[in-house]
């Protein structure tokens, strides 16, 4: 069972599990933990099944083509090294799940925790299983995102929110750098495929872009792996629940940077710049982390700085550039994950059972929790590098490498000394951790009475500590083969010979180890008691990463504000002017280069009718612009003239479909604006009687006039230049030639809409539906302005007249007044509807179609509303526009999807002739079904918008009563 497709299952499982956990009840602690544990276990078993293949030196690859032209395929790749990481992620993940089940209180929203944890596990797996650089960057960002959610899990806690935000900002910044670095790398190699990149080592190292790419990738790796100077986020991330710290901040996420460094080590390492940057950063981080860890008073803080220091150690090893150092780096990555995860879990137990993580308060816990204490002491000894434990082995390798000559610079000679010094620090804080917490007198004044943790909460630690011991005592039999496979897959032909034996004879590294152990313990005996007095680390404590971070962040935000203040405006008019000015400039620029001239095509003869029509329309447009402020109704009528002339022009210029649609839409738009007029304020008197208008207003209006003339003149000039040239050959030819043979319709415009470009139309009707729903929602909460609430004057007069006469009821006047038109209009309803259906059915061959038919049908409804009034229509007729919209969208979607059943892409159409008695052969295209969908959406949209607006009028009297909420008066 080593089918490459299993990789996809391993990757998908955690995400599916995450989705599942998200739907569990909030407090479903056991179920969520069971789900997460099962996911980790199944993944682990599946991944383990791949080992025999990998051990034989082969790699597993699965490529699912996606955007191959952009070099983006879904590529999964498993070799010995990524296998080792996957096992870490899944194995420690499973243990953390078990631990978290007992750690988290049943009051916490536990399902959410496990949902995030599994999603993180999936992102991490995605990263190590990716065989494509861009894909790695994608999953890398996902780990940042889920780490943010996990650190901020207790979001009621200020420090958790701050820590989460800091971690996100720092690692996401690094993620962007990493992505750019990867893009450069892909540009150098010509492919994002990891295997091809790994084959192009010499090309990359010799390329001019090597250094920028290297620095960007390193920034990415250093931020993620908490290297100096980006290390400060890790201690702040300790506000996370301890299972998160154990999983993300010791075993997995902080190793993501290390993973990328090791992955690209064969191609990026070995140059002088790599050596200088990576080694120095690693060394500084190693020392600073170890030094700061000594002075921490918080248990998790100590572990966090220790993690920083160990990550520095691994980075340093990778920086050295020798294959042996790379082996040591891989080995130490695994070792650190095991002992540090167990230490975090132990710290969590201590916190859980005593109520504090303060080293100054803790003491003598060994007698209260002997098992946990023993486990933690063994793990801490591994951290210190005590023989017979796994930490000792990799540290030995590190010290041996530190002694080698790598570059011939001053770093070579000081490295052994500094490495020993860091080891001394490491022993010192480990001893302090053990002594302060577990040994000494019984603790006083603890929040809880300490006791042993539950059996299954200790189990994960027991497993991890057992691994520490086994690897430490019999390395060749346990980790040996796996490490060999991993190393082989990274280094290939450069794999060095190395030995995992515990005893290499009396050697210099052993002497350094012993020095560190003796020195560290000695220093603790001398100064240990005084360490409790420090509130910050001496010397480096003054470097406050957090403060710098906040200053930089504040500066960025302030800068954004300044830019916003300078370049932004809240004034719509100013924005529109800027927009139009920009458009005019951009429009003019090309003409400055090529000059303006009319084309060679002769003018077609001017038809006097057409010219007269446009004289009329032009005058109307100018009139509307002139009068829109004070004479709204008149302006509306003038605009209507322009609309009608536009409609006639469409008909004139061989566009019957457009003329039809324009005419119909003109009607509904007019109704819409008339309905809107009701809610606009009374006309204001002119603010400035002509004589007293200030100069600025003249200036502003003059400027607007100039802009308007420039825009209009410009577009006219462009239009003229365009129309006097021959049209280039575009798509039209194809559409005209194939409309009938390919689409089964003779109306080319309609065939384009419902067949050739049906997907565009599909998007279009979706937009219509969204707009209609938005309008509807806005109107449900509509609050008219106070002075518009009263009934219009005309209605008040009519009502007063009706009230005054005893034989009349309210509303009689308006009813009688409209009696004849009403009867006519009501009788028109079926006629217009028939007309709509006719447009719909014939649309494929003659002008018409779903859009025109839909608007026509909605006009039928509107006419009814206008004739009889909202209330009386709704007593007799139920129009449910929302149902129309959804039915239409479903119909269009179903028509599109039906093509899948026959193996064609979405929205492929089919047509054939149907022989009907009497009528004869009629074409039946599946596009007609789609057009029916369009029809229904348009009917629903138009009706919904207009009816909702019309409803405001009958709602308003209730709004006048102060006791009732206007917004709640839903119709």
């Amino acid at each position, binding site marked *: 069972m080593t089918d490459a497709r299993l990789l996809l299952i391993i990757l998908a499982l955690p995400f599916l599990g995450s989705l599942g956990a998200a739907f569990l009840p909030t407090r479903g602690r056991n179920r969520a933990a069971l789900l997460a544990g099962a996911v980790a276990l199944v993944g682990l078993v599946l991944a383990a099944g791949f080992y025999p293949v990998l051990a034989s030196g082969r790699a597993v690859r699965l490529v699912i083509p996606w955007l191959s032209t952009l070099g983006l395929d879904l590529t999964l790749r498993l070799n010995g090294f990524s296998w080792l990481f996957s096992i870490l992620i899944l194995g420690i993940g499973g243990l953390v799940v078990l631990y978290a089940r007992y750690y988290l209180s049943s009051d916490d929203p536990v399902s959410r925790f496990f949902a995030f944890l599994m999603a993180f596990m999936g992102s991490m797996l995605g990263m190590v299983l990716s065989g494509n650089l861009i894909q790695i960057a994608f999953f890398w960002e996902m780990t940042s995102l889920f780490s943010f959610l996990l650190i901020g899990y207790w979001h009621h806690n200020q420090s958790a929110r701050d820590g989460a935000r800091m971690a996100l900002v720092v690692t996401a910044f690094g993620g962007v750098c990493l992505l750019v670095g990867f893009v450069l790398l892909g540009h150098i190699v010509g492919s994002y495929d990891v295997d091809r990149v790994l084959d192009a080592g010499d090309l990359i190292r010799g390329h001019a872009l090597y250094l920028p790419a290297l620095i960007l990738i390193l920034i990415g790796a250093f931020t993620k792996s908490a290297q100096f100077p980006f290390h400060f986020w890790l201690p702040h991330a300790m506000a996370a629940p301890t299972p998160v710290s154990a999983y993300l901040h010791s075993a997995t996420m902080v190793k993501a940077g290390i993973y990328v460094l090791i992955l690209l080590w064969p191609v990026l390492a070995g140059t002088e710049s790599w050596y200088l940057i990576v080694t120095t950063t690693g060394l500084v981080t190693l020392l600073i982390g170890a030094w700061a860890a000594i002075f921490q008073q918080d248990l998790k803080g100590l572990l966090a700085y220790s993690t920083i220091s160990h990550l520095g150690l691994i980075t340093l090893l990778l920086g050295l550039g020798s294959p042996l150092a790379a082996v040591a780096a891989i080995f130490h990555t695994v070792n650190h994950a095991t002992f540090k995860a167990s230490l975090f879990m132990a710290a969590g137990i201590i916190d859980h059972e005593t109520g504090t993580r303060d080293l100054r308060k803790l003491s003598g816990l060994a007698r209260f929790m002997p098992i946990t204490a023993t486990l933690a002491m063994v793990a801490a000894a591994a951290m210190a590098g005590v023989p017979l434990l796994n930490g000792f082995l990799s540290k030995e390798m590190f010290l041996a490498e530190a002694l080698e000559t790598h570059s011939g610079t001053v770093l070579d000679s000081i490295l052994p000394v500094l490495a020993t010094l860091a080891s001394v620090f490491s022993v010192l804080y480990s001893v302090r951790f053990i002594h302060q917490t577990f040994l000494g007198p019984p603790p006083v004044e603890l929040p809880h009475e300490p006791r042993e943790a539950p059996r299954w909460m200790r189990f994960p630690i027991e497993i991890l500590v057992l691994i520490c011991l086994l690897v430490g005592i019999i390395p060749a039999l346990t980790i040996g083969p796996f490490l060999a496979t991993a190393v082989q897959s990274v280094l290939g032909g450069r794999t060095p010979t190395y030995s995992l034996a515990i005893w290499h004879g009396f050697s210099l590294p052993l002497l350094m180890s012993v020095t560190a152990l003796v020195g560290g313990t000695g220093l603790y005996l001398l100064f240990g008691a005084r360490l409790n007095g420090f509130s910050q680390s001496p010397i480096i404590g003054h470097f406050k990463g957090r403060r710098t971070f906040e200053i930089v962040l504040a500066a960025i935000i302030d800068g954004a504000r300044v830019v916003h203040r300078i370049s932004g405006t809240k004034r719509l008019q100013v924005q529109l002017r800027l927009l139009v000015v920009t458009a005019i400039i951009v429009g003019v620029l090309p003409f400055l280069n090529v000059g303006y001239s009319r084309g060679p095509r002769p003018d077609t003869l001017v038809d006097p009718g057409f010219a007269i029509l446009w004289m009329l329309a032009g005058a109307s447009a100018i009139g509307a612009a002139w009068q829109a402020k004070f004479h709204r109704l008149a302006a509306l009528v003038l605009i209507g003239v322009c609309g009608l002339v536009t409609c006639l022009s469409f008909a004139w210029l061989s566009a019957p479909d457009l003329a039809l649609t324009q005419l119909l839409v003109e009607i509904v738009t007019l109704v819409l604006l008339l309905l809107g007029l009701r809610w606009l304020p009374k006309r204001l008197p002119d603010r400035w009687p002509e004589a007293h208008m200030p100069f600025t207003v003249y200036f502003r209006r003059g400027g607007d006039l100039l802009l*308007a003339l420039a825009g209009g003149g410009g577009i006219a000039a462009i239009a003229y230049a365009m129309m006097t040239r021959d049209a280039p050959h575009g798509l039209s030819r194809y559409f005209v030639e194939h409309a009938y043979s390919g689409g089964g319709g003779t109306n080319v415009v309609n065939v384009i809409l419902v067949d050739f470009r049906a997907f565009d139309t599909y998007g279009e009707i979706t937009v219509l539906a969204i707009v209609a729903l938005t309008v509807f929602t806005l109107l449900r909460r509509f609050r008219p302005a106070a002075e518009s609430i009263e009934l219009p004057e005309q209605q008040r007069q009519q009502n007063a007249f009706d009230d005054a006469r005893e034989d009349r009821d309210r509303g009689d006047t308006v009813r009688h007044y409209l009696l004849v038109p009403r009867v006519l209009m009501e009788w028109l309803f079926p006629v217009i509807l028939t007309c709509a259906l006719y447009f719909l059915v014939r649309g494929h061959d003659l002008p018409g179609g779903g859009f025109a038919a839909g608007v026509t049908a909605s006009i039928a409804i509107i006419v009814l509303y206008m004739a009889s009034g909202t209330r009386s229509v709704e007593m007799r007729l139920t129009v449910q526009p929302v149902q129309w919209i959804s039915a239409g969208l479903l119909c269009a979607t179903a028509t599109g999807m039906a093509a899948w059943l026959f193996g064609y892409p979405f929205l492929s159409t089919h047509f054939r002739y149907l022989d009907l008695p009497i009528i004869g052969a009629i074409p039946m295209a599946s596009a007609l079904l789609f057009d029916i969908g369009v029809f229904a959406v348009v009917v629903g949209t138009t009706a919904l918008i207009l009816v909702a607006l019309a409803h405001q009028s009958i709602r308003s009297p209730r709004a006048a009563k102060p006791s009732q909420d206007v917004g709640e008066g839903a119709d």
Partner: protein
Amino acid sequence: MEIVLALAIGILTASGLWLLFRPRTFQVILGLSLLSYAVNLFILAAGRLRTDAPPIVGKGAADPALYADPVPQALVLTAIVISFATTALLLVVLLASRGLTGTDHVDGEESDP
């Protein structure tokens, strides 16, 4: 014909732009209506002017030279319907804004004189 249509597009655009810059919401809505006429005519003009040549083809092989360009027409057709929807949306947003702010100024508050 070309010069007439070009001038027509120009006048519609100029009137529309003038209204677009006005401070009252109703003026802006009318301005957008005028602009959409202009833009639709412009797009149609991109297919060049043809009279008496609607793109309704016969059932045999069709010669593209005999028909008006159908592509701009297809573009404009949906634009007409969409412009109704956007006009409605704009109108309702402005009405709601007017209800909330008490003014029909586009910025929701009267500008300084």
